[in-house]
């Protein structure tokens, strides 16, 4: 939402978030390497470091992938979403370190160039048990690089939110590649049942959360509002909308957030211009609709961000008749001022 470019707008929250993140990663690596060295003294420090970095990256990817659906189901997870991109970049750097050390350890000591060796030392693509799993990790790393490199808001604005979101949905492909990388790599050589069990639990958690969130979203999309005379649609009784909050309805294939505040009702698109976050799940703070994801703000009457910011969302006409809120499903262009519907004291007391 800034009007001028800033590499990272450091706030106190971001500093705390990143300090906890860096501390957590360092602690994980120290514990992993310490316990690994104590239990398996024959394993070299390089191998322990490679495994520690790889497991840290994979674990962090599970956390990152779980945050989105968890936020859809419980607002208490929203603080984790605020700087999720920092988690993503950290995860990429851990994966990059894992891959670099692995290539140095296993492919850099011969006569063949390391990257050539990566592709040519094992070409048994027809065998599952002997599949060259390292190549899968490399392709996943390339996807994660593209995501980390475009994680800044500069790219979000340049590419537009729908394109940027589509690009970042490649994370699911990267997750699939990394699952195969682990299943055809370390799980082929480690015979303890603990490792497949941990991998299976992680997989079940991520996939289960995403399916649950996706089905929940679909049920909202399929809930069609009642039509009313004059081309309006029924939102519901005024009391069904909590003060300074919204009720979200699905009209014309997209969602509309209908806010109630200070005796008025305004309707705007539910889609935040920043990352397409759900505005209807936010609140009105300081007179502005505030996106729950990253705090982008819009005036309810105009759908415009307060000056000097430039983001705008479509607005909708709304009415309150006999205590029932109605919305015209035809949107106005983004930033169009629409007079809020007034809630009379009689309607408020119904």
């Amino acid at each position, binding site marked *: 939402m800034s009007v001028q470019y800033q590499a990272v707008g450091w706030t106190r929250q971001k500093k705390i978030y990143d300090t906890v993140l860096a501390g957590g990663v360092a602690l994980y690596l120290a514990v992993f390497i310490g316990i690994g060295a104590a239990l398996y*003294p*024959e*394993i*070299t420090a390089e*191998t322990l470091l490679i495994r520690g970095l790889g497991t840290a990256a994979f674990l962090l990817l599970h956390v990152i992938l779980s945050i989105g659906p968890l936020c859809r189901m419980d607002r208490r997870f929203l603080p984790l979403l605020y700087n999720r991109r920092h988690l993503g970049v950290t995860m990429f750097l851990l994966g990059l370190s894992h891959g670099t050390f692995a290539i140095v350890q296993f492919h850099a000591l011969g006569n063949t160039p390391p990257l050539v060796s990566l592709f040519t030392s094992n070409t048994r693509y027809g065998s*599952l*048990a002997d599949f060259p799993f390292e190549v899968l990790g490399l392709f996943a790393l390339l996807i994660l690089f593209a995501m980390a490199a475009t994680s800044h808001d500069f790219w979000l604005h340049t590419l537009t939110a*729908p394109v940027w*979101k*589509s690009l970042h*949905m490649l994370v*699911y492909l990267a*997750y*699939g590649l990394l*699952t*195969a990388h682990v*299943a*055809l790599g370390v*799980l*082929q050589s480690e*015979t303890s049942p603990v490792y*497949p069990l941990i*991998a*299976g639990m992680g*997989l079940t958690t*991520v*996939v289960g959360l*995403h*399916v649950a*969130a*996706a*089905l929940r*979203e*679909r049920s909202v*999309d399929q809930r069609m509002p009642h039509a009313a005379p004059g081309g309006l649609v029924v939102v519901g009784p005024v009391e069904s909308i909590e003060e300074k909050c919204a009720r979200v309805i699905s009209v014309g*294939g*997209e*969602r509309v957030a209908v806010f109630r505040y200070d005796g008025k009702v305004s309707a705007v698109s539910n*889609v935040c211009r920043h990352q*397409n976050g*759900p505005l209807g799940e936010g609140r009105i703070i300081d007179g502005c609709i505030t996106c729950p994801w990253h705090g982008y703000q819009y005036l309810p009457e105009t759908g415009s961000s307060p000056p000097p910011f430039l983001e705008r969302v479509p607005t909708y006409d709304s009415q309150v008749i006999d205590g029932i809120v109605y919305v015209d499903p035809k949107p106005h262009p983004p930033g169009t001022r629409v007079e809020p519907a007034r809630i009379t004291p009689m309607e408020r007391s119904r």
Partner: protein
Amino acid sequence: MIQPLRRVHLFVAMTMTITLPAILVTALAVRHPELPSNPLPGDDMRHAPMVMQSANPWNHGRIVTRLRSDPASPGALFVELIPRKPFGAGEVLLYWSPDMPGPGAKPDGWRLLGLAGDASRCFALPPEVRRKGGHLVLYSLARHEVIAEAELVYLQ
């Protein structure tokens, strides 16, 4: 998220539900069986007549060392190593060297006898041992360094 992406997300979530567990289960199903513990060359010599025994001829660590002879093959010698604690180094190989390895020595010109694990093992010694004696060398391939050496007494 806008509706088209929500539809894509639902499709992706459903696809992951099917494909990812399938990948995991298939990968576990095709795992190579654990390698059978076939006796290694020399292991059957563990009960051959003992020529001599030393509690610990090595300059580092504690490894009980026994020399054994093969009645079926006169002149052939075997060495049995019984480590009292793990080597604490990765990929430890046992070599025979005619000369004492100096500091930073590498296994050039040494004779590889086999992989020395933490369990006891027997290794066939080269015939030159009877004439030259020489040295047994434990070399860590992971560390690229000699971790212990022992002089073989003159056996002729």
